[in-house]
C-alpha cells in the first residue's frame, strides 16, 4: 500500500497495541479461572490475590474428574449439543432456502416475521409455559426436552444465516441443474451444499454454542443427575453455604477448553462462512 514508512510503522505498532490490549481484556477472566483452578484451597480466597501460583496443584481437577459426575454431564451436553446442531441445521437449511427463494409468498413472509418475533420473547417468560408443554409431551427429565427447546431457540438465527448465504448464490446454478432434471431437494444437497461448507460450519458453531452454554432450562427440565448437562452441573459446586471455587473453576476450564479448541480449528470457516453471507449484498 502507498504509505510513508513512518506512517506504516506507526500503524503496525498501533495495531499491535490494540490487539494486545484487547487480548488481555478478553483473556483476563479466563486466565483468572485457570490460575484459580491451580491454586491450593487456602490461597484461592485471600485478601491479596495474585496471578502467581507458587505451588500449582491439580487436586481440584482430580476432584472434578474423579469425585463428581463431571464426565457424565460432559457426555450429556455433548450428545445434546451435537443433536441440536444437526437438527437445527437440517431444519434451517430448508427454511433458509425457502426464505431466500420464495419470500414472494405471503405465508413465507409471515413465517419470517414470526421467527423474528420469537427472538423478542424473554426466556424467563418461556419457562413456565414450556415446562407445561414438556410435561404434556411426557418429555420432562429427558434429554429430548432440552433438544427440542434448544433447537427451537436456535432455528431462527440459523435460518437467517442460511438465508443470507443462499441469497448470495446465483440462481443460474440451480436453473441449469433444474434443466438437467434434478429435484429441488436434490439441488439443495448436490449443488448448494458443497459450495456452502463454510456457512454450514459457522451456523453449526452458533447452534452448538447456544446449546452448550444454556443454563436455566437445563436446570429446570432435568431432575436426575445422570441426565444433567454441563452448565447446571458445574453450578452444583456452588454449595449450600460456600462455593467450592477451586472445583468450580477447574470444571469451567474443562468446559470451555473443548469449545475454544473447536473454534480455533474452525475459525477460518467461521469467518469465510460469515463472509459468504454477509457482504455480497
Amino acid at each position, binding site marked *: 500500500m502507498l*504509505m510513508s514508512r513512518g506512517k506504516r510503522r506507526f500503524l503496525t505498532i498501533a495495531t499491535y497495541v490494540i490487539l494486545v490490549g484487547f487480548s488481555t481484556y478478553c483473556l483476563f*477472566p479466563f486466565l*483468572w479461572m485457570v490460575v484459580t483452578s491451580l491454586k491450593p484451597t487456602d490461597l484461592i480466597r485471600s485478601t491479596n490475590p495474585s496471578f502467581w501460583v507458587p505451588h500449582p496443584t491439580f487436586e481440584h481437577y482430580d476432584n472434578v474428574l474423579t469425585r463428581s459426575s463431571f464426565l457424565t454431564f460432559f457426555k450429556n451436553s455433548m450428545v445434546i449439543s451435537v443433536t441440536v446442531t444437526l437438527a437445527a441445521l437440517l431444519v434451517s437449511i430448508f427454511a433458509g432456502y425457502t426464505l431466500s427463494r420464495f419470500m414472494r409468498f405471503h405465508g413465507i413472509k409471515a*413465517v419470517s416475521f414470526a*421467527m423474528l*418475533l420469537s427472538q423478542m420473547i424473554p426466556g424467563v417468560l418461556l419457562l413456565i409455559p414450556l415446562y407445561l408443554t414438556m410435561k404434556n409431551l411426557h418429555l420432562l427429565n429427558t434429554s429430548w426436552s432440552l433438544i427440542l427447546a434448544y433447537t427451537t431457540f436456535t432455528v431462527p438465527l440459523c435460518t437467517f444465516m442460511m438465508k*443470507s448465504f443462499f441469497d448470495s448464490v446465483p440462481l443460474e446454478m440451480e436453473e441449469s441443474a433444474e434443466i438437467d432434471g434434478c429435484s429441488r431437494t436434490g439441488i439443495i444437497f448436490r449443488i448448494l451444499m458443497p459450495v456452502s461448507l463454510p456457512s454450514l460450519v459457522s451456523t453449526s458453531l452458533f447452534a452448538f454454542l447456544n446449546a452448550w452454554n444454556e443454563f436455566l432450562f437445563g436446570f429446570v427440565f432435568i431432575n436426575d443427575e445422570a441426565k444433567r448437562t454441563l452448565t447446571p452441573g*458445574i453450578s452444583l459446586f456452588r454449595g449450600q453455604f460456600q462455593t467450592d471455587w477451586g472445583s468450580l473453576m477447574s470444571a469451567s476450564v474443562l468446559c470451555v477448553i473443548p469449545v475454544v479448541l473447536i*473454534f480455533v480449528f474452525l475459525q477460518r470457516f467461521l469467518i469465510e462462512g460469515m463472509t459468504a453471507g454477509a457482504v455480497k*449484498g
Partner: protein
Amino acid sequence: MRDMHRAETEKRPLPAIRLRSSISPREKRFKRIAYLYILPAVVFFILLNAYPLITVLWDSFQFKSLVNKTLTGFAGLANYREVVHNEYFRTALWNTVVWTVLSVAGEYLFGIITALALNQNVKGRTLFRAFIIVPWVVPILIAGLTWTWMLTPDYGVINLWLVKLGLLKEPYYWLGELNTALLTVVFVNIWRSFPFYTISLLAALQSVSRDIIEAAAIDGAGIRTRFWRIVMPQLKTVSLTIIFIHVIWTAINFDFIFIMTEGGPLHSSETLPIMIYRYAMEEYNFGNASALASMMLGFMMSGFILYYLISVRKNRG
C-alpha cells in the same frame, strides 16, 4: 446472518418464467415446495413459541396470581395499569434503554476496532483471533460469577490492582453502588458479546476489495477518508444486521444482570426482563408479568416497524 430487513426492501430477480395474472403450474409447484420446506421450522415455532406467546397475551388481560386465588377472570387493562404505576417501572424502562444502547454501542465500537486490527497483515493474527473469541464461548453463568468475584472490593483482583497502580485511592464496590452497578454490568456484557461483532465485521472487511482502496490511496485519499468513504459503506449491511439482532437480544437479556446484581442495589440495574422475572417468580403474579412482557414486545415491534418504514422510504427516495 445478513438482513431480515433487506430482503423486503430490495427487489430480487424472480426465478425464471413468471406468468402475468394466473398462477402457472410451475409457480404452484414452487409454492408447495416452499411450504413443505418451511414446515419443520413452523412446527417448532408452533409447538414451543406460539403457545407461550399466546398464553402471555391472553394472561395479560386476566387476573392470574398463584398466591391470591380470590381474584380471577377477565381483568381488562388492570394488569397494564398496575405495571405502569409500579414505583420502579420508569427506572426499569430507562435502564433497559441505557443497557441496550450502551451495550450495543460499546460492542460495535470494540468490534470494529478489533476487526480492523485483525484485518491488518500482522504476525500472530490467528493467535489474536483465537484470544478474542474466548469470552464468547465462556458460559454466561461462569463469566458472571468470575467477574463478580474479580470486581469485589475486599478480595477482588481488579480493585487490588487499580489501587496498587494508583488509579484508585481505595477499593470501590463497582457492583454495589447506585451509580455504577448498571454500567459495570454493561462493561462485562460488552466483554462477552463484542467478539461476535469482531467476527462478522472481519468477515465483511476481508471481502472489501483491496483494489478500490489502493486506487483511492493513489488518488490521494487519506486513511480516514478511505475508512469513512470506502470501507464503512461496504460494512453497512452487516453492521445494520448485527446491530439490529443485538438490540433485540440485549433488550431481552436477563442472565448477566441477574447473576451479577439481581437488578440491585435498590433497583438501580433493574431492566424490564428482570422486572418480568420478579413479577412471575417472586410475586407469582402472572397477569402482571404477562402485561409487562406484552408491553415490551409491543415496544420492540413498534421500533422494528418504525425502522422498516424509514428504510423503505429511504430506499424509495
